[in-house]
């Protein structure tokens, strides 16, 4: 009898593990799809024709560069136990990261699944920054920038928010427990704010606001945005690290927020410009996806709609009014969408997070703790604000130092001649569209 029970228990465990692992591997693939082709198409369509390949390469090459970094040392620095600010080297060369689960991160999936899932986040985050320096950065400088940025900003921040014992970790013993389900601070604030620093440091593109710089192919941007929307289900619902009810809840919140954000942006643009543009609608979708990211595993569907709608309005305001007022050339609005949307989402997470959705936070006696303001915990908004400020600070300081280093070592900006010629020919020796061929 006891053998049969223990066999049964083992079978149940293995069945759950099979279900969870299937979802997590699918999610990992979905998140990779967000970078390539999702972001590559989204950004690629928004630049001028002479820069389409260079821009797509900014996303694509990171799928290779960050992967290698992650295997060697990145995963360890981000997710090994260590100090509250950085992991130690216990997972160097993925040592000990195998098929046995790591109970802190995902008790039912192989540790290796969690590792490769998190890798996809580390890939897309620096790829998002490329929207700010598109059409004028040297390819070699972009590579160096990204590698240094991973070490100085991404690995520490990911560790602080999601790593065991991280300073801002809500579930794994952080000093200031901040709620970030899928990366509002780690991914979107870090990339969006770094993008602003890059845009300011590199300066405007030649001819900005003088020559026409229309997107060369909004069609591929639409395709890219739709792939981002779909891939984002892996990003947010996958962050449950299980094929659970929480994953469903995050999936639903993600979808609702995105829909509302499309309408928010569209409405604002319609009123403001007289016409609702397709580029506006897809930009709204991305804004909504960004804003719901930190909140996705904590909020109910109707707050998700509200967060999304506000994100559509706020990000529209950022990329139109604010950008033109200050005159920075955030080429593809990485800051206006990811920096602003991420900040909004992180703060609103503190308002709308509820234990009705996520009962993961318990006190010593096992009683479920309330999460956000709606649960009667106004202090959470303050915690969110601290996490936001730390993320902004790390992004600003880290990015500025790295740009200085890159500028001193190789120079960050292409020559004026190369910029006029376009990055495709000057950096890569090829063209995106060869109609005569």
């Amino acid at each position: 009898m006891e053998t049969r029970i223990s066999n049964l228990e083992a079978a149940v465990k293995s069945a759950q593990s099979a279900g969870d692992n299937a979802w997590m591997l699918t999610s990992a693939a979905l998140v990779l799809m967000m970078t390539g082709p999702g972001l590559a198409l989204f950004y690629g369509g928004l630049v001028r024709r002479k820069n389409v390949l260079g821009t797509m390469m900014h996303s694509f090459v990171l799928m290779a560069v960050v992967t290698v970094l992650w295997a060697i040392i990145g995963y360890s620095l981000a997710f090994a136990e260590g100090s509250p600010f950085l992991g130690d080297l216990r997972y160097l060369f993925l040592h000990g990261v195998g098929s046995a689960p790591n109970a802190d991160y995902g008790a039912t999936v192989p540790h290796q699944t969690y590792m490769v899932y998190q890798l996809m986040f580390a890939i897309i985050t620096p790829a998002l920054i490329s929207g700010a320096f598109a059409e004028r950065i040297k390819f070699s400088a972009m590579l160096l920038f990204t590698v240094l940025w991973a070490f100085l900003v991404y690995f520490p921040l990911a560790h602080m928010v999601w790593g065991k014992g991280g300073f801002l970790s809500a579930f794994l013993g952080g000093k200031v427990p901040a709620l970030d389900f899928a990366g509002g601070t780690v991914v979107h604030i870090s990339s969006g704010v770094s993008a602003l620093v890059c845009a300011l440091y590199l300066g405007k593109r030649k001819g900005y606001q003088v020559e026409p710089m229309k997107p060369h192919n909004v069609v591929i941007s639409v395709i890219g945005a739709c792939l981002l929307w779909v891939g984002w289900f892996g990003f947010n619902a996958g962050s449950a690290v299980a094929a659970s009810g929480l994953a469903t809840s995050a999936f639903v919140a993600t979808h609702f927020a995105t829909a509302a954000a499309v309408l928010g942006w569209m409405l604002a643009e319609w009123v403001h410009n007289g016409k609702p543009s397709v580029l506006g609608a897809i930009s709204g979708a991305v804004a909504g996806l960004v804003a719901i990211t930190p909140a996705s595993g904590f909020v109910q569907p109707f707050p998700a709609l509200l967060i999304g709608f506000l994100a559509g309005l706020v990000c529209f305001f950022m990329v139109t009014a604010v950008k033109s007022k200050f005159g920075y050339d955030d080429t593809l609005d990485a800051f206006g969408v990811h920096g602003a949307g991420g900040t909004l989402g992180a703060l609103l997470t503190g308002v709308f997070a509820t234990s009705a959705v996520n009962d993961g936070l318990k006190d010593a006696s096992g009683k479920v703790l309330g999460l956000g303001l709606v649960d009667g915990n106004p202090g959470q908004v303050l915690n969110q604000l601290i996490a936001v400020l730390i993320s902004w600070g790390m992004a600003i300081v880290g990015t500025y130092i790295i740009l200085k280093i890159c500028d001193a070592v190789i120079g960050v900006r292409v020559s004026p001649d190369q910029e006029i010629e376009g990055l495709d020919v000057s950096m890569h020796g090829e063209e995106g569209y060869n109609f005569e061929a």
Partner: protein
Amino acid sequence: MKKIEAIIQPHKLEDVKEALKAIGVDGMTITEVRGHGRQKGHKEVYRGMEYQVDLLPKVKVEMVISDQRADEVVKTVVNSARTGKIGDGKVFVYDVAEAIRIRNDDRGEAAL
């Protein structure tokens, strides 16, 4: 010989082609061009960046015909390309010094 060069609205190309075919003109060269005369362009807005687009897509139809048919062809083009609105385009008529058929070296109107 005359060369007739007509800059027309792209959506009128089929009408012009049909009308020319009906009067027996069977050779022409078409180019997609951009331009403007008195017609205003339109405004495009991409994430708050406004662009005034004043060079609009047009189609240029070129054909060379005998002197005696010039008036008839011009009339046909004008009638079939007209919508009555600004932006309908223009027709220019030039004298042609010589025409040569590459295949067999025919000269003059025989080459048309």
